[in-house]
């Protein structure tokens, strides 16, 4: 079994951030190899290095026996390495046929259109199943067909290796099945496939071999069955069981609130263009309650929060303290008592810590500012010595604390958090969670979106589990932690997510 693609010791740094650390990976000819890993583990960076968009800081890449480490994307394409993109990159001004034809340019006559080439284009279009819409403009295709066209463009290169970057994003069941079939057919014709995917069902069905990344390193490698049983992998996705117990002992469980509903979400649906990210989700948070919203990447957790915070268009109903939110602009929410700590914090990097805090209290009277700031510095003591530092210079953990403090400056009744543990070492995650419990005990309701399910469930009062945009499990935190559907939502066994 010879390796078609080989990575040796690949490291990639962006300034101070190490996205990939010493990755060695071997993709055997004629296999379907999947790369999975939690959010932020470096999968996309890996693909970008293999396909020549980034140059690795250290290490090398070999393709079909040749060293290709700094070769640009278009040269790799000519060598038979094709890739698709997570956000389909089609040629919007052209029809389906023209898209494939454009992709064939390396294999066709430079000045004329020849018959042989035209025939091949037809074959490819037939193969992916787009023959009916061959003359339709690419811009008007629904998501399922966009993904197929994206693959057709890759096939036009007559590739030996195809990199598929989350080809199943936003597809429904039927479309997913069709795509799996196409990928299988490609495999049958001798193509080697390297796949990044979140949809665990798809990965487990298709892959011959899986590599799991975490924090930029290879965590595990093996067959699908091996990976599903691998403790380290389960831990990477769901969190460590023993630490969860520790946290629970230290911090205790959060408050259960007064029982009076504060946030009521009913039949929330969020669409990005053609993709349904959130499908008729209903959940609620009581006054003073701590609720966790869990699920894998792409499950729709962030989108749900964004819809509640009115940063994304949605249909359905979102009521906050009895008031319907879906018609309000985002900037009104803080005044109503709803604050969001966004994914990746989104601090104002060029402003100091104190200035960030002041912004958090934008709508509040100037006279209150000093007192509020003092309260926050008491709650988050390690921010005190950083008061005059610019926000971008803070460490990850400090930034997360600042982001929460900033949101609290507006004295919200409900605090929304989008993956606060992202990019933080486990010890820091525990610190953040302890703080959140403390805040909750002082009376603030919390809706926490987390990938790190175990940690979240060890302190939350109740939980919901999302998979492919739908709620698949809910109940008290203890119930959800035991529910096999939780594991299924992350690692694809247990009951199917439908």
């Amino acid at each position, binding site marked *: 079994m010879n390796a078609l693609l080989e990575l040796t010791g690949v490291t990639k740094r962006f300034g101070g951030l190490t996205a990939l650390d010493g990755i060695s990976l071997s993709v055997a000819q004629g296999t379907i190899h999947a790369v999975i890993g939690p959010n932020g583990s470096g999968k996309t960076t890996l693909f970008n290095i293999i*396909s020549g*968009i980034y140059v690795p800081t250290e290490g090398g890449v070999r393709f079909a026996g040749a060293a290709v480490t700094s070769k*640009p*994307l*278009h040269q790799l*394409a*000519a060598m038979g390495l*094709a*890739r698709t*993109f997570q*956000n389909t*990159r*089609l*040629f*919007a*001004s*052209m*029809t389906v*046929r*023209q898209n494939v*034809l*454009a*992709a064939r*340019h*390396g294999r*066709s*006559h*430079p*000045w*004329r*259109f*020849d*018959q042989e080439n*035209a025939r091949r284009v037809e074959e490819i279009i037939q193969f992916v199943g787009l023959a009916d819409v061959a*003359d339709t403009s690419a*811009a008007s295709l629904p998501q399922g067909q966009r993904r197929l066209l994206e693959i057709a*463009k*890759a096939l*036009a*290169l007559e590739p030996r290796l195809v990199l598929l970057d989350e080809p199943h994003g936003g597809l429904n069941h039927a479309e997913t099945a069709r795509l799996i079939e196409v990928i299988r057919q490609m495999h049958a014709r001798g193509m080697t496939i390297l796949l990044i995917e979140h949809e665990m069902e798809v990965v487990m069905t298709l892959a011959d071999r899986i590599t799991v990344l975490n924090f930029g390193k290879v965590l595990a490698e093996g067959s699908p069955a091996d990976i599903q049983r691998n403790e380290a992998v389960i831990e990477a996705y769901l969190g460590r069981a023993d630490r969860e117990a520790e946290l629970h002992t230290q911090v205790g469980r959060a408050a259960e609130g007064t029982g009076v509903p504060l946030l009521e979400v009913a039949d929330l649906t969020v669409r990005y*263009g053609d993709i349904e990210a959130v499908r008729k989700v209903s959940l609620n948070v009581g006054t003073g309650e701590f609720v966790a919203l869990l699920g894998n990447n792409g499950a729709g957790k962030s989108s749900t929060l964004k819809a509640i915070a009115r940063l994304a268009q949605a249909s359905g109903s979102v009521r906050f303290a009895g008031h319907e939110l879906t018609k309000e602009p985002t900037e009104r929410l803080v005044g109503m008592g709803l604050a969001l700590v966004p994914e990746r914090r989104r601090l104002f990097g060029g402003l100091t810590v104190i200035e960030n805090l002041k912004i958090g209290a934008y709508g509040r009277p100037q006279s209150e500012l000093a007192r509020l700031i003092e309260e926050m510095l008491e709650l988050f003591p390690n921010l005190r010595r950083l008061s005059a530092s610019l926000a971008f210079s803070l460490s990850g953990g400090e930034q997360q604390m600042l982001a929460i403090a900033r949101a609290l400056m507006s004295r919200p009744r409900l605090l929304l958090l989008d993956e606060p543990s992202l990019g933080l070492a486990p010890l820091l995650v525990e610190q953040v969670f302890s703080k959140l419990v403390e805040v909750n005990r002082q009376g603030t309701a919390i809706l926490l979106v987390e990938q790190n399910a175990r940690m979240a469930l060890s302190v939350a009062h109740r939980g919901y589990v999302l998979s492919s945009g739908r709620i698949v499990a809910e109940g008290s935190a203890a119930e959800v932690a035991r529910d096999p559907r939780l594991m299924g939502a992350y690692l694809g066994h247990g009951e199917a997510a439908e």
Partner: protein
Amino acid sequence: MAADASTLTMRTLAILVIATAILCGLLLPRFLSVYYLQVADVTLINILLVLGLNFILGFGGQMSLAQCAFFGIGAYAFTLLQSAGMPVPVAAIGAIALSAAVGMALGWPTLRLKGHYLALCTLAFALIVERLLVNWEGLTNGANGITAIPGIGLAGENDKMLWVLLAVVAGAYLLQVWIANGPLGLRIRALRDDPLAAQAVGVDISRLKIMLFVISAAYGGLAGICYVLLRGYISPDVFSWQSTFSYLAMAVVGGLGSPLGAVLGAILYTFVPELLRFMQEYYFAVFGVMVILVITFLPTGLSGLVLSAFRGLRRREKSYARSDVTHHERAA
């Protein structure tokens, strides 16, 4: 199958364009005074310039503001090569070659520049060329310009030059359509639609961008030659750096990337205001507003409007790269 449809349409278009040119050549001298004939001649030269701009700006999506510089380089090179004793055809080829070479020299290092950086770089270049034309008196005779350039002996004969210009412009127009409808045209549109995706299918976008720059420069140089043939004298003020914005405005209002748009835009900017001299400032103020409105709401420009009116008349869509369809609003 599809290839045949393309050639068929191409042939029809060629006949249409040549017929229109012949018609103009026959009718315009009948109905236009000497003055307006000259305006028509200048309009044709402007069409040529905007056709050139189409390649780099409309097709390639790169903001080049250097078109007036290539206009000037072509004109002066043609003139100086003639005064060095070369026969007209050789001087013409030399002038175009020089423009193309300068285009490559400018295009190559600016590959990395995007958006406003490229705009400023090309504008700075245009300014430098103009200043050199004005101040390098030993070479260009400075602000006084150069007179009595022999050319093909038709200087000032607006009706005969009309035929020459119509032939040149018809040829340049058809060349652009031919390129745009061929495989090269698909690569160009791929570059325009999504450079990263284009690279992913193997398009060397650096080489493509330079090629577009060179073709644009060549068209600009050719326009310079035509200007010399028409006038018989040149001076730097014709090639002022500010004039580059006019060509941009013509291209936008006509429809970026559309050969028909180049024609419409040039006519609207050059010929029509001459008919409305009494309200010229109002006209150009409106034109400026049109630029804003077109780029915001109707990126395919006036040619887009015209063509969609005709679309209903066509039996079947042209299957291949129609360069006059550009899409500015794209999903993220």
